[in-house]
């Protein structure tokens, strides 16, 4: 088991860099939290008073439930889920790694463009999937 307090520094740095850049680059994004699949926040970039730990736990639950839905429906492995609301959207994106599975949670308001945020979440996932441990 890799403990949350002993996550590889390289991976933590890569996660922080990715989250910070996404928040800065994508208009309307208000929070980017990168978490372990069991809901510990590894890195985050936030506007305002959002709670990274709480967002991480929710991302973990959404990811796990989505994975089961995909499995039960014979749809293969979970990749991402988008929650559309009247004020914006949230994206939960899987980061498949052999050593430490991660999830990315992007929260955006109505100024954001969904396709742009989804594309960026996908790019972050690829970067983190290949980041050194």
């Amino acid at each position, binding site marked *: *088991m*890799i*403990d*949350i*307090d002993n*996550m590889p520094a390289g991976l933590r740095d890569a996660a922080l860099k990715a989250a910070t850049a996404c928040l800065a680059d994508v208009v309307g994004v208000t929070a980017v939290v990168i978490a*372990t*699949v*069991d*809901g*510990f926040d590894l890195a985050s970039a936030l506007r305002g008073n959002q709670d990274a*730990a*709480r967002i*991480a*736990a*929710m991302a*973990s*639950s*959404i*990811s*796990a*439930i989505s*994975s*089961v839905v995909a499995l*039960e429906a014979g749809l293969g492995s979970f990749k991402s889920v988008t929650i559309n609301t009247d004020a914006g959207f949230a994206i939960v994106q899987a980061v498949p790694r052999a050593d*430490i*599975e991660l999830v990315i949670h992007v929260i955006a308001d109505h100024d954001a463009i969904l396709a742009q945020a989804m594309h960026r979440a996908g790019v972050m996932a690829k970067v983190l999937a290949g980041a050194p441990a």
Partner: protein
Amino acid sequence: MKEYKLLITGTMGAGKTTAIRAISDTAPIVTDVANHDSSVDKARTTVGLDYGVLALDNGDRIRLFGTPGQARFDFLWQILAKNALGLVILVDNARPDPLADLAMFLDGFATHLETLPCVIGVGRTDTHPATTLEHYADALEARGMVFPILPVDVRQRADVISLIDTLLGQIEAGMDMDLQ
């Protein structure tokens, strides 16, 4: 035919998933993932929900929902408790402070427990007898609560069925009182 929604909660490692697996008539739905919390010696942990179904001899059906155990998932506790008719709290007597564990769930479900029947299942009482069932009863009494407290081995179907039977008895009694 009656349908009951029952909720099983308790600390990480107390055996919620195992309990549902022990009595579900169908393969349970589980949302466990790799655990990164080294304070608990466990490879995987539930982060969403567990789900199983148990058919009773009289044709009634119980839908069993299990919660994650960690407090960081308390948002799910409230969601899963909606429309539940009863609550099982599982406590692991081998943990450092099982009475504090119980208190966390009594607090977490405080609003629901004002009306919801509840039963406490205490695991590993044989190997860790320091905290007795009387201690649990005293802790409940201090809060003005009285719930059945049973020793349980969640790997044993009969033990889990006993917990559910006890809870159903409470639910039926509550319904009878409502009708009077």
